[in-house]
């Protein structure tokens, strides 16, 4: 998929470092066991935390960002960990004055960006899933899939108020 937002990262930021470049704060670090039931409570916590830190001042973005995160978490549980409740989904949220980022890691086999369908093609118009990637492409500013594709880092630039 030709794209300027979604990238296959060559490798993750130095694993010895706690923070990706440009970020100075870990806002949240948590994991949950792969169950669809866990997604909604986790999502609420993430949104609350982003709002408290002033990253959601543009209210028109709350709904789409929520959907992007929902899609990424559902992907981790369903496609990554294949609903295996013994496997975990790890979430870390990073902050800086101009951006926030979320890193989501599952314990599954991963995928490559090349496997994503061509969303501009007519055939994908009637797909019943996978639309989250379109939202992610629209509302996130940078997206990197790392390692074997089981880790994603999504970055959003904002004007904190």
């Amino acid at each position, binding site marked *: 998929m030709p794209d300027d937002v979604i990238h296959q990262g060559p490798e993750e930021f130095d694993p010895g470092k706690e923070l990706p470049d440009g970020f100075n704060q870990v806002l949240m670090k948590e994991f949950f066991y792969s169950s*669809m*039931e866990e*997604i*909604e409570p986790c*999502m609420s916590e993430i949104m609350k935390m982003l709002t408290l830190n002033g990253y959601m001042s543009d209210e*028109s973005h*709350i*709904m*789409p960002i*929520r*959907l992007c995160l*929902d*899609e990424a978490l*559902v992907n981790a549980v369903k496609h990554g960990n294949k609903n295996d409740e013994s496997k975990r989904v790890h979430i870390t949220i990073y902050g800086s004055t101009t951006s926030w980022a979320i890193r989501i890691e599952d314990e599954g086999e991963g995928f490559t960006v090349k496997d994503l369908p061509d*969303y501009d093609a007519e055939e994908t*118009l*009637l*797909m*019943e*899933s996978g*639309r*989250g990637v*379109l*939202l992610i492409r*629209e*509302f996130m500013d940078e997206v990197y899939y790392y390692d074997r594709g089981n880790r994603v880092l999504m970055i959003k630039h904002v004007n904190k108020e």
Partner: protein
Amino acid sequence: MAVLATEKYKDVVIAYFQESSILDERNIRSLADELTDIVDRNLKIDLLLNFETVEYLSSAVLGKLIALQKKVTKEKGRLKLCAIKPNIMEVFTVTRLDKVLEIHKTQDAAMAAFAKKGFFRR
């Protein structure tokens, strides 16, 4: 509690969402079951989904709407949506659902569109 409340008006089944958020797995499964049930019980249904109360939905709901559209079309019915809030409309546009689903600004506009029956209908 059911996710949808329905009424029939001028041969159109109008379904209203009872909750402002359709996010969790249970809610979404219930929505899908209720929609299937409505379509199965009405031959060649004219179905209008009124979104006026909806403020949040998850990406899984988008898929359910596509599935519903396919099912209604297959059974020779018609599906329209109306009264979608601007921020949700943006989601529909970005995901290109607006190209697949017929969306009207108001319930009246949707009802008027239903009233224009096609030449081969009924």
